[in-house]
Every structure is written in C-alpha cells, then in structure tokens.
C-alpha cells in the first residue's frame, strides 16, 4: 500500500478588516487582504435565522468596535442576547442577526434591528461614525492562504539566510519552471532544525497516510515542539 504524508501549511496573515461606517444597518467590507475577494455565498435572513451560512460555520466573525451606549440620543440598541452592554465595549455580533450579499468589489452585511429581532438584533446608531465594525477571518479560504502538499512532491529545503528557510515543491500546476514555495521565518541559525523536523514528520511511519498540520501559521500552531522557533509562514503557489 502506498501511503504519502500530506503537509498542511497556512499563512500567518493579518486577519482583520475594518468596515465602512453608515447609519442604515449596512456593514460593508471592501475587498482587500485578508478578504481579497469577499465570500461569494450569500446568506439570506432565513438562512441566518436557521443557523446556516459561512458566518455560522466559523469562517469569520463580525465585531462592533465600540458600543455607543452612554444614554445620549444616538445610542446603539441591543437584543436580549447581548445582555447589558457597556459604553465603548467591543461586541461580537451574532451571526443570527446578519444577512449577506457579495457586492461589486466588496461584501455587504445587513444587520437585523432590535425591532426585527428582539433577541439577536442590533440597531445602529443614528451617527454613522459610531458604527465601526471589524470583520475577522477565522479560517484560511483563498489561494496563498493555505496549501496542502503531498510530501512526495518536496524537491528541496534551502536556507535563504540565517532566519529564513525555503521549502520547494513540485508545483500544483506541474508546469515546467514553476514551483510551489513555502518560506519559514524562524529563530536565527535554526535552519537545520526546520529541515530535521520536515524529515522527521515525513519519515515517521505514524504520520504516513495523514494530513499533518506542519506549520499552521494562521493559528500559530506548529508541528511538535517547534524547536526552530518558526513564527512566520509565507506561501507562493505556482511561483516562478
């Protein structure tokens, strides 16, 4: 039986993106890292209420940057789910309150008001500037954010300098001249420990026939005890 080892890598990218601020229950996030192309799948009000969609499935979370709740005339209103919200508190918006549609160059999330949903709804402030939100990516979902490679396609491990080690793989396109590249930044002069860890993970019979999260930079989880001190992971798929 042929058993390969499947190596999982993910980028340690910045995961947050700020929204525009309006006073019409709309939270718009423009395309741009880490959401180079905002999710394509719409979430209807009915789907959100039924616990479906990528927000419920943990792809991302939406937070209000600072609740405005100082008893002035333009406060936010919150459904019972949120309890008593202090002024300036960061509030995680329940996915039950969010419908979504991809726009042109952005993604539009519409919040249910408290009048529409007394439990999960949030009514925005009448002052647009009070309605700042942040969308946080919780899982990689686009090219160059995550990559799984068969260990048998590993061609070379190379020290770029004292703190960077490059893993070169046969490209996923299998094109001549192209390569899949994974670069680790790590503790100085630990290149050999990166190479040894890769060799260990591939040759250990217990790992054969599995997907091993060798360097999950997204979640800052690294294989074994991370003796090399890897702290940055950069992916370049089908690079020249």
């Amino acid at each position, binding site marked *: 039986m042929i058993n390969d080892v499947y190596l999982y890598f993910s980028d340690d990218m910045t995961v947050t993106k700020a929204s525009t601020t309006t006073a019409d229950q709309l939270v718009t996030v423009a395309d741009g890292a880490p959401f180079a192309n905002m999710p394509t*799948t719409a979430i209807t009000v009915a789907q959100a209420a039924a616990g479906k969609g990528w927000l419920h499935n943990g792809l991302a979370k939406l937070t209000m940057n600072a609740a405005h709740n100082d008893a002035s005339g333009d406060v936010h209103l919150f459904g019972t789910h949120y309890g008593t919200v202090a002024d300036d508190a960061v509030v995680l918006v329940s996915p039950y309150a969010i419908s979504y549609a991809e726009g042109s160059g952005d993604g539009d999330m519409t919040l249910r008001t408290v009048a529409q949903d007394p439990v999960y709804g949030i009514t925005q402030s009448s002052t647009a500037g009070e309605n700042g939100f942040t969308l946080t990516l919780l899982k*990689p979902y686009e090219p160059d954010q995550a990559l799984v*490679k068969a260990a*048998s396609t590993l061609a070379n491990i190379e020290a770029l300098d004292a703190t960077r080690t490059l893993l070169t793989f046969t*490209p996923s*396109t*299998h094109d001549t001249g192209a390569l899949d590249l994974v670069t680790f930044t790590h503790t100085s002069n630990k290149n050999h420990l990166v190479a040894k860890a890769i060799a260990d993970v591939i040759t250990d019979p217990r790992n054969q026939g599995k*997907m091993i999260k060798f360097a999950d930079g997204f979640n800052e989880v690294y294989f074994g005890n991370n003796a090399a001190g890897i702290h940055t992971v950069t992916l370049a798929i089908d690079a020249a």
Partner: protein
Amino acid sequence: MIKFAYFETASNDATMVPVANYLGTEPTNDVTCTMHWKKMDNTLDGMNIVMNFTTGMTTEALDSLHSAMASNPKDGFIVMGDDNLTGFTNLEHITSVGAITL
C-alpha cells in the same frame, strides 16, 4: 497495492487517478477548493478537480478529503465524490464534485 481516487460529477464527467499522482490542494473561495494532479498524458502539466464544500468549512473539507485519500480500502479504490450514484454519501463537509479539467 496502488490506491486510486475516483471522482464523478452530476454531468457524467468522471475520472480515476492514482493517488500517487497527487500534487496538492489549495482553497479557492468560501465554497470550493482545487485538487491538483499530474497530467494524465505524463507531460509536465497538471489536471485539476474542483471540490465543493459547505460554505465556510475550508479546513474541515481539506481534512476530510485527505483523510479519505489516506484511507486504505482493501481494493485500493477510493470514491472521493460521486454525484450520480444514488445513495452515495458525500465525504463530511463535501457537497459535490465540481469541474474536472484534464
């Protein structure tokens, strides 16, 4: 024994490839990832199979696909997805087989 992975779309497009020809997978968006294989004509080129999954379940789908490929059925035949087979149960989080590009 050599292992084979089998894919079939709802539009009767199907392929079986040796698991040893697998190159890698990356996510494409919130509902699809692309599995790459060595080109069947043995040229330096690739073939792609898009796999569709439940929106937002990227890493779970990657886990599911690779667990299936790593399995060891006695006959070496691994059905990764078959959208034409009545009663076939998709791999966890996988919803269908997308485009097969040979």
